[in-house]
């Protein structure tokens, strides 16, 4: 399902996340490293944006700062209209919980929780609804479906944000990621690809403003990686979600609506409707150009 990008004008006008004049300096004095060197970038809502660049270009730092996992040395970062710099640790945590989804490269799941519990973890942490009870229902549901008895039990106690009950939404999500029969398994019982799919479901479960994915396919074989990327794409195009993905893989980047290129902590280019070949060409040209500059800093970031 390599659906062509279908951005609409209205979507493009709403901003999911944004950084302005973003500077991030690690260390101090002579050993200081400028991981971000004055970046302005906007991630429009309803779009799938990929961040690319050679290692040390600052792409992970950009994501961490945009997502409220790290703080900028100067400049501003917004999720929607909320400026992250003004929030204390607690508010930042609540913002991540309620308005941001995460998919990391590895170690995305809490090993002691079942698949179902992992998916609803952010909402459970928020204490929305009767989380434990719902977790059990979900478990039971999964079990009964596996038993072949079917299960029409929809849980709509969960009061999600936006239209439709969150029970239905998560139910649909579970079907989309294809993990209905694994709901009560522990992460250790799943393959790497399945674990990443759970992580994707978790990231979208709370219908966040934006989902940040940090090399989500980095640890996967190409087939599993493709599945995960398709899921991210479907979430944006069919479910009207927003995804920002950091990757170094042109094939992965080709799933995005737009690619932004970073080098030496600066935004150097943007590409609409990318394909793997075009991204690769761009990177090659770019490598040649920036070789001399990035050598010194490449190892440190």
């Amino acid at each position, binding site marked *: 399902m390599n659906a062509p990008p279908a951005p609409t004008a209205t979507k493009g006008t709403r901003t999911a996340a944004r950084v302005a004049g973003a500077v991030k300096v690690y260390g101090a004095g002579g050993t200081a490293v400028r991981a971000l060197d004055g970046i302005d970038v906007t991630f429009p809502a309803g779009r799938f944006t990929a961040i690319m660049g050679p290692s040390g270009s600052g792409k992970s730092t950009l994501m961490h700062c945009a997502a409220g996992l790290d703080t900028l040395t100067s400049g501003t970062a917004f999720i929607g209209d909320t400026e992250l710099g003004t929030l204390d640790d607690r508010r930042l945590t609540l913002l991540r919980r309620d308005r941001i989804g995460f998919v990391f490269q590895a170690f995305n799941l809490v090993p002691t*929780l079942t698949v179902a519990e992992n998916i609803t973890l952010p909402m459970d942490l928020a204490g929305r609804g009767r989380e*434990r009870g719902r*977790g059990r229902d979900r478990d039971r549901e999964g079990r009964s479906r596996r038993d072949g008895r079917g299960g029409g039990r929809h849980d709509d106690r969960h009061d999600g944000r936006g239209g439709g009950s969150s029970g239905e939404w998560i139910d649909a999500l579970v079907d989309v990621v294809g993990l209905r029969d694994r709901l009560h398994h522990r992460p250790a019982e799943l393959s790497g690809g399945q674990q990443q799919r759970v992580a994707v479901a978790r990231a979208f479960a709370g219908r966040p403003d934006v989902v940040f994915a940090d090399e989500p396919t980095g640890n996967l074989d190409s087939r599993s990686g493709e599945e995960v990327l398709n899921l991210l794409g479907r979430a944006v195009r069919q479910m009207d979600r927003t995804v920002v993905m950091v990757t170094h893989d042109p094939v992965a980047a080709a799933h995005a609506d737009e690619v932004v290129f970073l080098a030496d902590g600066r935004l150097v280019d943007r590409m609409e409707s990318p394909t793997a070949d075009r991204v690769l060409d761009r990177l090659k040209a770019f490598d040649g150009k920036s070789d001399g500059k990035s050598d010194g800093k490449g190892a440190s970031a």
Partner: protein
Amino acid sequence: MNASVRISVSSLRAHKRRFAGTFLAVLLGVAFLAGTLVMGDTLRASFDTMFGDATSGTDAVVRSADTITTPGESQGVRQPVGTDLVAAVEKTPGVAAAAPDIQGAGQLVGANGEPVGGQGPPTLAGNWIDDPELNAYRLAEGRAPARSGEVVVNRGAAEKGDLHVGDTTTLRTPDPVEVTIVGLATFGGEDGMAQVTFTGMTRPDAEKYLTAKPGQAASILVRAGPGVGQRELVDALTPELPAGVEAITGQEVAAENTEMISGQFLTLFTTFLLVFSGVALLVATFSIHNTFAIVVAQRTRENALLRALGASRRQVTASTLVEASAVAVVASTAGLAGGIGIAAGLQALFPAIGFPFPEGDLVISALSMVLPLAVGVVVCLGSALLPAVRAGRTAPLAALRETSVDRSGASRTRAVVGTGVAALAVAVTLTGVVVSPSLWLAGGGAVLALAAFVVLGPVAATTAVRVLGAPLDRLRGVTGALAARNALRSPRRTAATASALMIGVAVVSLFTVFGASLKETMDRTVSRSFAGDVVVSTPSFGAGGSGLSPALAGAIGERAEVDTAVGLGRGVAEVDGKGRALTVTDPVALERTFDLGGIRGSTRDLGANGIAITQQEADKQDLSAGDTTRLTFTDGATRTFTVRAVYGRSELAGEYVITREAWAPHRTQDSDTVVAVSFKDGVTASEGKAAVERVAKAYGNPEVQTRDEYARSSAGAIDMMLTLVYALLALAVLIAVLGIANTLTLAVHERTRELGLLRAVGQTRSQLRAMVRWESVLVAAFGTAGGLALGGFLGWVLVRASDGASNSAFAFAVPPVQFAVIAGVGLVAGAFAGLRPARRAARLDVLHAIASE
């Protein structure tokens, strides 16, 4: 070798914090042990010096050769010697001086009207010996008694009673005697012989009040002339003495005195403390073992890498053991220093709280240096041994695997072995308790039960944490669920952590159950056996005090309110060749105030040669009413007694009862220990009590208690003991709490990435802290629950076994309030243990945690 050492040294340096808990556990255990040993040695040496000094002028003692020792008492009763022997002794060549030493009980009444001492250590009275060399006491102030009614008292007693030279007070011998203090004395340079009080009277007074008839003394003290050695003196004296009288050297007497104090009091005291340092070290063992087990598990990859690079199993094992040794040696040495500090502190503290232990330099013997060190090192190395071997077995391939999953503790073998041990424990215990009562079997069963609990811990951990965590799950939402799941992660680790607390709590509950059962027993005994209304008694705890005047019972009996007043005195005699305690009383009155159970025969006509005995003793000696038995008294006389009555219940009345008439010819100092009083019909308790108190006032004001008060005051001593036990066990619980904190800190470290993930997806810092804290509480709850169960069971075993071993019936009681308190303390301790790890976890930098490999 060097490689192993180098690896362990660098690892120790890198992970200092991980070993902080281990270090503290070893340190505390060793300090306690060393402190106990040093304090014991110091006290023993001080007493030695004190007795040596006090009796240095006495070169020989002439005394009766025979003693009668009753069961449960280490010191026998010796019959007196005639003072007429003094003349013969003085004539013996080599003797410079001789003086009779008359000893008895005499309790001073302080300036405030309350008795001085008597809460344990003896209250002595005797004749003031004029020869200063022979007198163990030295005049420190005033003069020696010269006239009847003048006394010298030891300075410690005077201070305690706020008495001064020139004061007039009452001495209970136990008949109240008006005395004037003319001098104060010291003993061996101290204010007294430990807590013992001493009153020195003139010789005629002493003979009048302290002996049954004049012309008797406990012993004759002899001083040698110049150039005559102690041995020589004894050799010279021995041929001059009649049969049944012996002479021993002054050194031997000093040694006996020291032995009396060290043997009874100090040995008991130090054994008691050693038991508790043993408990603390046992708890420490679990904590230490757990720390090493976790550290080794966390280092699997590192060890595997070492193995892959060519390190041998032995090298990997050795590096862990070297690490353990380093911790052990440093912590034990610190503990030793700490222990010596504790001993010094206590030495300074005791006098401050009015416990005048003799002063002296700290005695630090080789044993008290080597033993704690050795124990510390052995405990530490022993605890690390298994983890070290496991480290050595790490497969080189483990380096390549993802994180090693805990091989669950709930293995079948463990379950089977544990159940087997548990079954064996129950079988052995029941045999020891029910089938053929034996303390050894019961004790063995108790140890097996402990082993079963430890082995089954990991098996039980899963279920237990689930059950205990259920309410948490519901109340605390996902935070609680995560806490419970974390506690369930490694059942073996959870169980090992909880085991330390379990042992501490088990010992606490054991003592609590035993104490409550003793109280209950006391209560039931009093309410069952005592049919009277009030009791006049000397302090129930210890053998101190001078007892009650034998005239008191008669005086109380004359009051209009009183129906019967019966005094119970104590005597000793050999019955059928074995020393026995006798109750000397009026058997008819006894029967009216005490429920003696069924009586065969009659107590009415015991007369001067009749005896009443309990059914139990009668069965043992195959006696029944009408049979005769022979009693040998301390004066050497042997008389034939006829068993006139056999009664069922011995609890308060004692096992052998004879009349005053029968006892009088053989008695020493006459006294009653208890006077039981029943009122006439229609007399209210308060009226009656007030009347009795008025009479008692004239007899030195002994305490008058109602039945309930009597039972409660008996229980008071138990509460005191329990308080001491709890204080000592606090250390074990502290070590267990340290263990929990340490395990959690290590777990937090292990779960860095997971915690980072939780924080990234929206767990707030306070939620994270709560999660860690609740895990800690769950582990503590598991340990506490196990400890309560085990302690309750062991308490039951102890009570049942004691019941089987003793003559009187033992009641078993589980105190619900105390158990609830213990449970509460366990949970709070858990929450407390979780504080630091929780804070550390919350301080985690999210990004760092996610990025960390």
